[in-house]
Structure formats: structure tokens, C-alpha cells
């Protein structure tokens, strides 16, 4: 599957699409990037006069790139209107802050995809190549729950 095709199939849009570009996808994992534009709304409140990307947004970014894009790739032609996506667990560590206008690269490694459940080890790095967060994410991507 073409990488741009995967992004086109994502069920998100602004202001909640956190994937800019997919760099690679195969049976075992994906990698992709996202740049946190300083105009994103949550920076107005997190924190007052001190914008830092919230951990939940980092987690969402890792899930969209690392898990959902991988799930779409793995399902191939079986991904359609009937497909249900649900985030089911996250075990995360936040190692460094991510500030406005930083570009991050997310890399995921499939742990398993069975009976509709996709579990992955996911790492996010900043432009300096430092790990900013990592964790184990899981979700259901299936035709029924």
C-alpha cells in the first residue's frame, strides 16, 4: 500500500490529525513524522504562558502514527467503512518536554496483531534524535467489537 494512501484513510482531521508524513511501513512496524505547530489550540492552556505539548497529545500522536497507520497497513483492503478503531491501553513514559514547532519522529514495532487487537512498542524522538517518549500501546482495529 502507498504510504500517502494510508494517511488518506485515517479517520481523523484537523484539529485532531497528528500525522504529517509516513516514512516507512511494513508488516512489522511503521515510522512517521509530525510537527507541532505553535498555533495548536491546546498551547494556549498547557501551560499558562508556558506552552508545552501535553502528554495526552504525545500519546495520541504515537497512537495515530504507530498504531492506527500500522493497523490500516496490516488490514490492507479489509480496512473499510465498517472498520472500528478503539484505543484500549497505553503504558507510557515521558522522557523530555516537546515544545511548540518541534518535529517528532514516531517509530512503532508490532508486538502482535491478533483477533483484531494490535499491540505495539512505540518510540518518539525529537529532531536531535533524542527519545522524548516511549511506551506500549494497544487498540482494537476490527469490523466489530
Amino acid at each position, binding site marked *: 500500500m502507498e504510504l500517502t494512501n494510508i494517511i488518506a484513510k485515517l479517520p481523523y482531521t484537523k484539529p485532531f490529525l497528528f500525522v504529517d508524513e509516513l516514512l516507512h511501513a511494513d508488516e512489522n512496524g511503521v515510522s512517521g513524522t509530525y510537527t507541532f505547530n505553535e498555533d495548536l489550540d491546546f498551547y494556549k492552556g498547557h501551560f499558562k504562558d508556558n506552552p508545552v505539548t501535553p502528554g495526552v497529545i504525545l500519546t495520541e500522536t504515537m497512537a495515530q502514527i504507530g498504531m492506527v497507520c500500522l493497523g490500516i497497513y496490516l488490514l490492507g483492503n479489509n480496512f473499510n467503512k465498517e472498520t472500528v478503531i*478503539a484505543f*484500549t*491501553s497505553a503504558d507510557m513514559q515521558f522522557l523530555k518536554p516537546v515544545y511548540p514547532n518541534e518535529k517528532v519522529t514516531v517509530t512503532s514495532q508490532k508486538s*502482535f496483531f*491478533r*483477533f*483484531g*487487537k494490535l499491540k505495539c512498542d512505540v518510540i518518539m524522538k525529537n529532531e536531535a534524535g533524542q527519545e522524548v517518549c516511549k511506551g506500549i500501546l*494497544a*487498540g*482494537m482495529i476490527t469490523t466489530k*467489537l
Partner: protein
Amino acid sequence: MKKEELIAQLKVIIKPYTTNTEAFDNLTEDTDFINDLSINSANLVDIVLDIEETFNIIIEDTDMQRMLDVKTAVEIIETKLSEK
């Protein structure tokens, strides 16, 4: 393996995935994973993967779809074990 023994092993597998301790303590063959034990579909997959590892069997997609209560789980495990 006796059925009671199998259910006891199954309880060990299920325990980390349920928050409903009362239903878990009173688990019987009729206990439903989703409705009685409040286990969601993602954790049901984890339970099935743990069952595969514990009993060294492979569960098929068609079995997974039926595996919604203790009775069916026991029946599927017994069938798989007898095929070994």
C-alpha cells in the same frame, strides 16, 4: 485434565483482567466474560493469548468469536487439548 482443574487454571489467567471481584469470586461455568466480569474485547484477546500460552494450543478466529463465557472456553480448550 479434570474440568475443575481447568477452570482453576482459567481463573488464574482471568484474574488480572477483571475488576469485578464479586463476579470473579463466584465464577462458574455460566459466567460470561463481558457481561459478568466486565472484560472488554481487548482484554478478552489478552486472555485468549494467555490461554494459548498456558495450554500450548492455538485458538482459531472462529473459536475466538464463540469464546464469550467460561463454559465455551473450557469446551474449546478441552477440544484443543484432545487433538494434541
